[in-house]
């Protein structure tokens, strides 16, 4: 992946600190903040950070908090719409389905970011990425008359704005 070789140490240290803080926050959420438990929590967060760095080396990508909030809101709204969409199609007297496949180009390079984006896209209404081939993704749609590829491109722009390289 790009950007690992140059300036590896500061990137790595910063990514490690960021992830350790996230994991410690998750520990507090599931385990509580009793003083006696904190050393164990710190050790657990350290172990989780070690595993995370080993499994997903930092790429130097940065997160814009405000764009992240916008992205989260977008996908929450998307998953509500998706739920209603499925409910409407399932409960209608006649099944309102027009399923089929659509291919769409992907701008994100292969890697963790692209995988995460596809996971988010599978929560969007009527679309389910099933196969990635090179730089295109094959999407199964409940209704191929919907502008699935266009929506996907808009989501990808939002996603790339949130996680940007330095």
């Amino acid at each position, binding site marked *: 992946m790009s950007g690992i070789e140059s300036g590896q140490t500061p990137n790595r240290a910063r990514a490690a600190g960021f992830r350790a803080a996230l994991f410690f926050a998750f520990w507090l959420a*599931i385990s509580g903040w009793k003083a006696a438990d904190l050393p164990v929590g710190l050790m657990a967060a350290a172990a989780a950070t070690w595993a995370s760095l080993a*499994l997903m080396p930092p790429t130097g990508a940065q997160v814009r908090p405000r764009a992240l909030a916008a992205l989260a809101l977008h996908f929450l709204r998307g998953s509500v719409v998706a739920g209603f969409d499925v409910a409407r199609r399932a409960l209608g007297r006649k099944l309102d389905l027009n399923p089929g496949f659509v291919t769409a180009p992907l701008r994100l390079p292969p890697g963790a970011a692209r995988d995460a984006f*596809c996971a988010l896209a599978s929560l969007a209404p009527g679309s389910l990425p099933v196969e990635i081939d090179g730089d295109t993704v094959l999407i199964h749609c409940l209704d191929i008359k919907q502008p699935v590829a266009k929506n996907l491109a808009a989501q990808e722009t939002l996603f790339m704005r949130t996680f940007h390289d330095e």
Partner: protein
Amino acid sequence: MSVLQILDVGLALLVLAVAVWTIAAREIFGAVVGYVAYGLLLSLVWIRLFAPDVALTEAAIGSGVTGVLLVTSGARLKGAGKASAAAKPSLSLRLSAAALSLLAAAALAGVILALPDPGPTLAPEARQHLAATGLGNPVTAVLIAWRSFDTMLEKIVLALAVVGVWSVASDLYWGGAPAPLGRANPQGALLLLEQTLVPLGILVGVHIFWVGADAPGGAFQAGAILAAMWMIVMIARVSEPPPVNSRWLRLALVAGPAVFIVAGLAGLGMAGYFFAYPDGFAKPIILFIEAFMLLTIAATLPVLVAGPPRRSFRP
């Protein structure tokens, strides 16, 4: 009947229906999925029986290690199913199997119906002496303090199970590694799952281990969760099953029972009898033993799933 009773009866009927389906299913994979569903419903039942420790074990083992083991073997058996289906057992064999099952079921029902009411219990006594261990969770106290010998033997059984699985290996591959758990070129969604779930799983595992002293949880449940995390790393082909003659692996496999035995012997020396914990030190000693059991369980379960060595030591 109150709503709660209706819910309980409905849950029990559902569990029974899924159990019958699992037994009666003709399709191997249908039976496997039925069994996974059955395990999930059982953990709901354990919650209704106010046994969260057991519910946690069922959830961690059933959807993690056994789920993967059964689904994988189900798919393999299906691939090899054509040959075995031809060798259908004879009618007399099937009838005697049915008679034997009926007999066993009747005997079990008889024992349960003959139980005294209220049943014999040591629960009040366990609660009364809980303070002496420094623990807050009576289940952990029973497992590691009062019935420590049983628990130690259970861990030795786990080690014996590994020996049993490994002994199936052919001489050619002895000392080598088991076959890879996953397929080459894992897809993005699997990698995403592995990259995000494993760190979170470590946190959840350590949490469940740590609260086990005072609340539902403990080494076995936590070990099963950590084992699942190691398994998903191997399924994603980020790491491979270690060779069976790896020193680290073998140390991890025996660490739990070994530390347990050493602690028991230390009790003999310091407090007068096997597995006596000196006053005031019970809790730290118990947590120390549990930490090594956690390691052993987390290492043993994936090794059992990975199976005997299938690749030579130095390819």
